[in-house]
């Protein structure tokens, strides 16, 4: 059994909004194995980003973690004080955000932002930090690192900024890297460069990665395991090979089919998932996906299915329970 770097158990992150209680992450459990990449897929509003922010302890009001455990290297992050979390954040768990344009501070140089974590966590002198910072810029393949070190974010292109974000995240050799849509804002040729880089660095440093994305193509390239989320819940959790060979949950299946692919017969209509994601104040009583599900039966409208084991993976659908046959 491989060592587990991160274990999330029954995580519940709720938002107490004026419109009512929003269960953004609703009883989510998963593990990340050491040195492996877990991909989390879902559409906007499915809770994938809030899951990662919960791990980092960055959920802001009106959001609150209402229950569950987040065990990182055996210790519960939810029991840590803010000061202790600050020691972990950036040193043991680092995060790369979606928008390299907005997540770098425009009034500090690249160098100042990279060395911040080194000065704080590694207690380096400024000179050591500068050397290490330049080394990191070299690692992420930024040309002329010595010059770039003293430049400001606006002087770099989008792809370069994302490289800087990666350099910042990796400078303290974190045990785990959380990437929240790291390539969504980038062009395809730059996306290919960045994914290549993340894969390469993962193999070199042995860092575990959590890759959050809406793009199944990205998942296929980087992930070992995949977790599909829908409306705050995990609907399918399997290895990457299993998911692409045979998606079992109707939502996963629908997602796979509705993406136009290069080798499709393009005279045909694209298959669609009808309707849209339910809003949190109007959740169906039973399975959250049931109003859009082509296979839904009566039971799906009545109650939420459990996450069950089926064919070596976990899936939340009545199709794989005894109740399905009894409910024709």
């Amino acid at each position: 059994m491989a060592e587990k770097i991160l274990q999330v158990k029954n995580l519940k992150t709720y938002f107490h909004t004026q419109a009512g209680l929003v269960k953004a992450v609703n009883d989510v459990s998963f593990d990340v194995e050491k040195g492996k990449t877990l991909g989390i897929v879902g559409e906007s509003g499915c809770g994938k980003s809030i899951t990662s922010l919960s791990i980092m302890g960055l959920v802001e009001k009106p959001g609150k973690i209402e229950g569950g455990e987040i065990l990182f290297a055996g210790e519960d992050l939810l029991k840590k004080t803010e000061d202790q979390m600050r020691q972990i954040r950036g040193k043991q768990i680092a995060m790369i955000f979606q928008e390299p344009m907005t997540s770098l501070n425009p009034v500090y140089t690249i160098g100042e932002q990279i060395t911040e974590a080194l000065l704080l966590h590694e207690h380096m002198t400024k000179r050591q930090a500068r050397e290490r910072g330049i080394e990191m810029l070299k690692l992420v393949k930024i040309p002329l690192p010595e010059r770039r070190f003293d430049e400001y974010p606006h002087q770099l292109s989008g792809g370069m900024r994302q490289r800087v974000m990666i350099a910042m995240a990796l400078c303290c050799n974190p045990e785990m890297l959380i990437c929240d849509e790291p390539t969504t804002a980038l062009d395809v040729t730059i996306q290919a460069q960045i994914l290549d880089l993340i894969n390469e660095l993962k193999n070199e440093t042995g860092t575990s990665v959590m890759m959050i994305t809406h793009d199944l193509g990205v998942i296929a390239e980087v992930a070992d395991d995949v977790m599909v989320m829908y409306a705050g819940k995990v609907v399918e959790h399997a290895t990457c090979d299993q998911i692409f060979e045979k998606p079992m949950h109707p939502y996963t299946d629908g997602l796979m089919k509705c993406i136009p692919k290069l080798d499709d017969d393009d005279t045909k209509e694209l298959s669609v998932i009808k309707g849209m994601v339910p809003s949190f104040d109007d959740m169906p009583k039973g399975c959250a996906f049931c109003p859009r599900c082509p296979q839904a039966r009566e039971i799906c409208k009545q109650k939420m299915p459990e996450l069950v084991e089926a064919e070596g993976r976990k899936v939340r659908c009545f199709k794989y329970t005894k109740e399905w046959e009894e409910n024709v």
Partner: protein
Amino acid sequence: MSEANDKTPLLEVKNLRKLFPARSSFFAKEKSWIKAVDDVSFTLNPRETLGVVGESGCGKSTMGRSVLRLIEPTSGQILYKGRDFGKASGQELRKMRADMQIIFQDPYASLNPRMTVGEVIAEPLNIQKRYKTAEETRAQVLKTMEVVGLNPKYYNRYPHEFSGGQRQRIGIARAIVLGPSLVVCDEPVSALDVSIQSQVLNLLRELQNSMGMAYIFISHNLSVIKHISDRVMVMYLGHVVEMADKKELFANPSHPYTQALLSAIPMPERHSKRKKIILQGDLPSPANPPSGCIFHTRCFMAKDICSTQKPELRDIGNGHMCACHFCDGCK
């Protein structure tokens, strides 16, 4: 338009150019120019979809907007149904524009938050004074709402009450309410979730079949382009680098940039056998484009000639146009 016959292309664009002034510093006397669109020519037939693909900054949106003169082109000729659209003005321009519409990328920013859905969709009808009475206008709006899959009972609602996919349907309704022959779709699905994206793509194709519109479909997503287009144009730094029939282009991509672009898309399949070409470096600044072939700084096939001599866009067989010194067929 009586003078146009069946053989006239719907749209002919010749040597379209759009330059934006750029000053290197506030006091600099000499102006430099950013060539956002440089010498682009193409024709578009009725009911045809021309897919325009390229990365950010390649000039695809500027090109789409210049064709409609939402951005005034610097030079070049735009013939619409045989008439010179580039020189039209006043009443004539307004009349011609009724026939050419645009769908924007961002369904959140492109709808006026203070107007109800009904008002948004009715606006083109009012500007064009299409109907004499408010009832007729309303009836047409309601009909259009139904066509794009919006429930007519939402007539008096405001855009913020809708999801992204539905807002894009409002944008589509606004574009088609006048029954145009040409619609420029500027990244109409890139802001949408994947499950919604396929709904909108199907709707666009359905509308094309029923209303007989031609599309200029701008996107950075090659899979989407392949799904919807008849012909495809690949742009890089304001230039057309390759243009061909869809089937031909995807079967025989000839320009190294197209090849790299095709290979870079992450495909939702495991253990893909496709060989990946990873381009080095970033897109050069259009204010200071490379000499010779604009792509030579990132090209994996570049030779000496590429940095000195600009390759022309030429036919390499069956109307497959490519701008490369070494593309197959030109050797």
